């Protein structure tokens, strides 16, 4: 019984870190651009499909390009579409990104068909790691390591680089950032691109774990919304804690109350929001109220 709990906990942790990766991207886009990106899950799905194609045709190292390409697509989307929504009614942003999500899914369906495509991890990551009674695939451990590394590097990027400082400053007062001589429009494209890159990375990693199927976007966007809301809009540590909480809750409910596993995180979210209106670490930001 305990073994089962522990290995489910590890699974929950892996799931949680993947979710965090998606949610962080959603969160910085939201904090800086004020746009709720319903299409965020699509960038996750595109990341998975790109990785699959690149790995199949050029060998697995090529798959590593997938997140970068997704980031680039994100920047193009910001420049052509999202840009026109700044300062407009939030409803339009919701509708546009929602339509974008449906379009992306339709495109994937058109190109790759609606059936799931098998995507196996590279040969050197096949097999299991055994630790006492706990049995975990090598690939899962790899995903855990990469997500943790990615989160640490992204944190360091926000903390120590010039662009990271601009993102943090801009999420509080974007106009003032412009008044300091920083080219805000370019920064906003960059932020959208980086957010999408993170989603693409999560997609690349999740490909071999989950099923690569056009509708996989929904499996990413809903937990990301829940995590961002539970963690508190704009809070990095909040997103990590909320992500792990959601990952563990989901994994445990799969084990013990499989019928409830889908609803578990929403119940968690509803309860937390009713107790703490702005999430665990949320601060009062006028523009989200």
């Amino acid at each position, binding site marked *: 019984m305990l073994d089962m709990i522990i290995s489910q906990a590890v699974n929950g942790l892996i799931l949680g870190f993947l979710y965090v990766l998606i949610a962080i991207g959603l969160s910085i886009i939201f904090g800086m651009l004020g746009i709720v990106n319903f299409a965020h899950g699509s960038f996750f799905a595109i990341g998975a499909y790109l990785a699959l194609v690149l790995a199949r045709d050029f060998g697995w190292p090529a798959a590593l390009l997938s997140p970068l390409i997704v980031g680039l697509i994100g920047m193009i989307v910001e420049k052509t579409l999202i840009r026109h929504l700044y300062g407009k009614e939030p409803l339009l942003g*919701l509708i546009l990104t929602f*339509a974008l999500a*449906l379009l992306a899914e339709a495109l994937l369906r058109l190109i790759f068909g609606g059936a799931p495509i098998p995507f196996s991890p590279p040969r050197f990551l096949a097999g299991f790691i055994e630790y006492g009674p706990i049995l975990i695939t090598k690939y899962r451990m790899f995903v855990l390591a990469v997500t943790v590394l990615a989160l640490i590097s992204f944190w360091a990027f926000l903390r120590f680089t010039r662009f990271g400082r601009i993102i943090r400053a801009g999420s509080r007062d974007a106009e003032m950032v412009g*008044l300091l*001589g920083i080219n805000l429009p370019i920064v906003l494209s960059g932020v959208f691109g980086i957010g999408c890159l993170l989603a693409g990375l999560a997609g690349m990693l999740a490909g071999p774990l989950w099923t690569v199927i056009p509708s996989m976007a929904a499996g990413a966007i809903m937990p990301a919304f829940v995590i961002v*809301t539970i963690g508190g809009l704009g809070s990095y540590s909040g997103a990590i804690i909320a992500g792990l909480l959601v990952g563990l809750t989901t994994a445990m409910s799969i084990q013990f109350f499989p019928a409830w596993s889908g609803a578990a995180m*929403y119940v968690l979210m509803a309860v937390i929001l009713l107790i703490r209106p702005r999430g665990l670490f949320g601060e009062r930001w006028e523009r989200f109220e």
Partner: protein
Amino acid sequence: MNTRNLMMNPILWIAVVFAALTFAWLGQGAPVNLITQIAIYTLYGAGVNLLVGYTGLVPFGASVFFGCASYITAFLLLGPVRQDIMALVLTILFSLVLAAALGALILRRRGLYFSLLTLACSQIAFEVAYKWTAVTGGENGLQGVPRTSFGTEMQFHIFALVTVVAGMWFLWRLAHAPFGRVLQAVRDNEQRASSLGYNTYLVKLGGFVIMAGIVGFAGGLLTLMLQGVYANNLGWQRAGDSLLMTVLGGVHHFLGPLWGAIAFIILENRLSAITENWWLIFAPIIIAFALLSPEGMQGLVQRALKRERWTLTRNTIPARPAVIKPYESAGQAMDPNKPILETRKLNKSFGSLVTAHDIDLSVRPFVLHSIIGPNGAGKTTFYNMLTGVLPPSAGQILFEGKDITRLPMYARARLGISRSFQILSIFPNLSVFENVRVAVQAQRHGALGFITDAHDLEALNERTWSILDAVGLADRAAEPCMNLPHGAKRLLEIAVTLAIDSKLLLLDEPLAGLAEADRHVVAELIRSLSKKHAVLLIEHDIDRVLAISERISVLHQGRMIADGKPAEVARNPEVIAAYLGAAKGAEKAPPAVERAAHAAGKVLLEAKGIAVGYGGSTVLNGVDLVVHEGEAVALLGRNGVGKTTTLRALTGTLPLDAGTLSFEGADLGALKPYEINRLGIALVPEGRRLFPNLTVIENLQIAARPGGLSIEECFALFPRLRTRQKAQAENLSGGERQMVAIARALVVPSKLILLDEPFEGLAPAVVEEVMAALVKLRGKVAMVIVEHHAETVLPIVDRAMVLVNGKVAFAGDAGMLERDHALQAKLLGVVQADETVAA
């Protein structure tokens, strides 16, 4: 009803469109089911639009009501209730109860949180429906739901059409009924609606519950149509369907959901015949509409017809009576000798910052009583305590002898305390008439009434016309409020304030942003209103306040320092000191600096005749400004004369309405703020605007560019910052924040620094420290220092400019202004105009 009215009746349109579609489909021999579905989704969308278009709430998961209702109908018909119409009635009841319970919780959250919570609800419902196979049939859903009253498809089709049209009729009535009109007021300006005495939480809950009833009925109809029920209607992608349809058709149009549903369902039907992937075509259409026609399909047509307006309600107003009854105040019977409003030892502190200290005030009826005080005196805090926005830390507020200290805003409004807002707070999308009428309704009728047209309530109309006439807006009653010029909007703001049968009018800067002619009109109106009400006025235009008030109380640093007749107050030495700075007498000698003659230098910045305003208001009107290389210029003026606005124009955050701006010969007019900064103009903004989540050093690093001061040099200038460099900006003291803000402007290679009230809220010792730093910078970089205390800043600048009501009233040598105390007092102090003449 004449033919034109009949033509304009949207219910008729709906009936005709449905009938036409039905015949068209029958003519082709196509299944009529599709048209039934359009009708059902029209009602679904219209229900959702009751929240989106009418109430201003965006539910992303209204599907929770649609989906749950469709299951309930199925359960009832497969189980205990074997009669379909009965089942529909019970479904509506169920939806109402479910919405009341969910809404009571969810509506406590606003904005995005509201949208996401509704989405979460629909997802929980989806998971339950999908997984609880034993009850819901899971993925396969439930089939074989009996349709007991309708033998044929056609019979059901007609039933659906008739009930949908009836539902739409109800919504159309509701939009014009007292309740629906309050919903629209809440959409436009919830805070104002609350200040008028509406309990906006209950109003929104009411809207939410009605939405659920309508959507639930649509869900029940769908079950009957399909004779089954499926979980996918609850899935996240379908959750947005009703919203997409509504936006596609136009959220600000009553018929929007109809056009949206027709386009959506027919396209889905036709496209899916060609391709499985119909979103491939449909999603770009939606994206194009979101970007190019935010008002949807109907908006597109109306734009083509050059009749761009919302059609959520008829745009008519009741007929103007032949004779408008003169305005009567609710306060006419007040005892002029008894104070109507009193505060006793009122205190407010934010942490260690005390913004109100033992304020005792007593306001009598029929007296025009004003409160003045320099920036940061605590006027706004005091006002917010009176209106119920802020709870006092200690003390009492009495209205007509009753303790109202803890009453919420709307309850105070009901007692007869009515407030106007400093920033215009009216209902922009309602007509002028409706703005006032909805306010009258608050006091006389309330929010209830769901069927009768509110414009048929004659007593309210009569009162509305009286008020409009009293403020001089009766001739513009039918205009949309949005199109009014700024002066008329101010009058409307006051009219709305009057409308709730107020005894006491609290007016917060009613003259802000007005041109001279409008100031005169509004001031006269206030004076005449004070004959019929108690009036408490907060205003920056000191000359006007002294001229019209009968009694003046002066606040300074949270204390009441004077209270009496205008002439007495103007002579009070404490008041003079508060306005002109404590320099005279107080031995805080500012650093003596030799004034350099920079005026001969090269012209750096030149503004010619600039005019700037916010949304139609005029703040600056023809201002000229020249700054030479290395010159320090003080920009002086009382509160609210346009000093900060000038800086906003110079930094490119506000567009110029007229005039030209150039910097070293380059035109600044079309440049973005960051481009202007890169030319060499740096801003030290009002309130510092540091990034609170960044450390001191990060705040500097973010702005630093080669050519500016190094961070080391900044620390040399402000030694105190060196020790605090790792601290987060949110944890700094006010003085430290100001130093960081100045340093942040210096690390940029700037030729001109604009400082907005750099000494505001600082302790005297810190003021000296900051001032010493500015003196060191003098000559190296040009500066424009905005100040309202002339004495503080005049000794360290070369030239001074004084703004009065958006115009330059003085420009010249700083030393001259420093010596001319009479001129200072006239332009910056508290002096009654006629007294100066006499002196």
